[in-house]
């Protein structure tokens, strides 16, 4: 009798082990912050919000547990090893209506050029922004012109135009959220994102 029970137990364990499952682990990001991930199935939902917390999802979501570093290395080591570096980001600021960066920002250029030259296979996104003062369509054009100026400055500094891409967000992504029609120096900026 005993072996039979053991056998049934093994088969059950085997089936459970074979049921397809997804493991989701929340980990701190590059600066140590822990955000949230929402794990959902058609019938259930769970929010992970603790460091290294994980669930296993089959047709239902398991209880949440904490994953130790050793297990994490075994399950995700290869993927973690090739995660690209966190992109580097620089901000250049602009006077009202100006399309060229202010003096303080221009002084950052040599350091930015060096960062791009040292980066492994760099791609550079140049993202123009405006504050919310004035007309939205005009702000979009202004942000595009600002980004264009920065692109020229980088090109003059020896960066190939092939690796640069210009974007304009207008007043849609303020650094400091304001109401409409607000002149805000910190929002008149171009971000150089090196990735």
């Amino acid at each position: 009798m005993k072996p039979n029970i053991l056998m049934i137990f093994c088969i059950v364990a085997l089936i459970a082990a074979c049921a397809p499952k997804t493991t989701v682990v929340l980990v701190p990001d590059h600066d140590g912050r822990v955000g949230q991930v929402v794990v959902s199935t058609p019938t259930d939902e769970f929010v992970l919000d603790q460091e290294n917390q994980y669930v296993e999802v089959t047709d239902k979501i398991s209880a949440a547990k904490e994953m130790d570093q050793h297990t994490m290395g075994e399950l995700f080591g290869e993927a973690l090893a090739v995660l690209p570096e966190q992109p580097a980001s620089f901000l250049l600021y602009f006077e009202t209506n100006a399309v060229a960066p202010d003096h303080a920002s221009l002084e950052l250029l040599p350091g930015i050029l060096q960062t791009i030259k040292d980066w492994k296979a760099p791609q550079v996104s140049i993202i123009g922004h405006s504050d919310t003062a004035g007309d939205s369509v005009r702000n979009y054009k202004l942000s595009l012109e600002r980004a264009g100026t920065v692109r020229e400055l980088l090109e003059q500094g020896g960066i190939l135009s092939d690796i640069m891409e210009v974007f304009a967000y207008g007043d849609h992504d303020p650094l400091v959220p304001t109401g409409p029609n607000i002149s805000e120096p910190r929002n008149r900026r171009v971000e150089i994102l090196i990735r």
Partner: protein
Amino acid sequence: MYRSIVTALFVVLFWTSPVLAQETIGNVKSVSGQVEVQREDRIVTAIPGANLREGDILRTAENSAVGVIFLDGTRISVGPASEMVVSSFRFEPNNENYSFDIHMKKGSAVYSSGKLEKLAPEAVKFNTPQTTVGVRGTKFLVRID
């Protein structure tokens, strides 16, 4: 009426999408071992610097892995014996048009948020056969067994 809807659908599906799909949405950054990218019915070996487009499928062999970075700074790396489809990537802040759908069929991956998630968290969906993962500003690991 029915006919015009069908025609409109046809136009949307077969005329619009190939135009949009031409755009580069990111790049392969690091490759270890054997990794391929499938675009429609063409399969190429992934090399660092290679462009990615909407609809591309990344496949890794055993003991292989690949790291990619998207235009908005989102980073994803894929572990051994994996298959991942970038079903959609739309990042147009000026038009407030955002979408990011990943379909992971098998294997393991690491996800680290970029600007798209910051501007439109609800637009990011990382799907596996068992679950959909939504992101609120962070990094997570996924594995399908």
